[in-house]
């Protein structure tokens, strides 16, 4: 009987521990995720200008590895925000990086390779949870 109670207790303990772990688990680190797509920034934008609906469906919530040129980089709060160059100010690619990413050495016109999760399209494509994968 004691053995059964012990096993039940351990099971309850394991369930509680798993619940606590899940509750406090931070969002997954993009650095540990594989890219679903690898694409040049210009080609990425061409897909949206050709067929926004199709591109939006294709990339939604996907991890995208992008290679492009920085138009602007600035720290806002605890994260860096990067805009990749685009000829059209009403378009472009905006990436919010993970708080652990330091982009202090990057500036406009630098080339960058990054991985981030696509979240949708407003005045351009938006990605979050970005991580640097070069430099």
């Amino acid at each position: 009987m004691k053995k059964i109670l012990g096993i039940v207790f351990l099971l309850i303990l394991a369930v509680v521990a798993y619940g606590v772990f899940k509750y406090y688990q931070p969002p997954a680190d993009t650095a540990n995720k594989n890219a679903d797509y690898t694409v040049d920034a210009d080609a990425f934008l061409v897909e949206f200008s050709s067929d926004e609906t199709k591109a939006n469906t294709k990339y939604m919530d996907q991890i995208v590895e992008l290679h492009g040129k920085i138009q602007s980089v600035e720290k806002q709060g605890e994260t860096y925000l990067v805009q990749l160059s685009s000829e059209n100010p009403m378009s472009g690619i905006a990436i919010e990086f993970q708080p652990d990413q330091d982009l202090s050495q990057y500036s406009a016109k630098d080339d960058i390779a990054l991985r981030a999760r696509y979240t949708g399209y407003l005045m351009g494509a938006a990605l979050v949870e970005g991580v640097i994968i070069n430099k």
Partner: protein
Amino acid sequence: MKYLFTAAFSLVFLSGAFAQKFYTKQASIKFESEAPMETISAINQQAVSVLDSETGEMQWSALVKSFRFDKALMQEHFNENYLESDDYPKAIFTGRLAENISWQTDGQYEVLVRGTLDMHGEQNEVEIPATIYVRDGVISASSAFAVQVADYGIKIPKVVKDNVSEQVKIYVQAQYQAL
């Protein structure tokens, strides 16, 4: 809904050839839910806002999936159970300043913005207090207001009523650049 942003954006920008237009793609929207058991907050720093200083028209648009939480589980519940971001990917406010502002004069202007907040497939008329700052030709704006989640068809299950508040505080901030 899908083309609402594009249509409203075109309305703001294509009306009035001499209007002064400003925009930002890095507006921030933070929300905070204060409940007895816990405070939940998230921030979106990729909101788009456009402002026509001639007509006072203003629009804000945010992708629901771009809100960043500290905890993965909260982010998941927010997107899947409450805001249902696959079905309602954007939150949009379209409105107009209720008062005139001297855009050429540096200052801090307390104004009301009246308009429609479209979120989770529900549209409500709202009146939001805001502060507009004009300094050396640079325009920025901030606001803090509260929304009742029930007004937007968001149901809080009884089992988490002490964890998730029925009223959510929203803080917005934007620094505009001329178009």
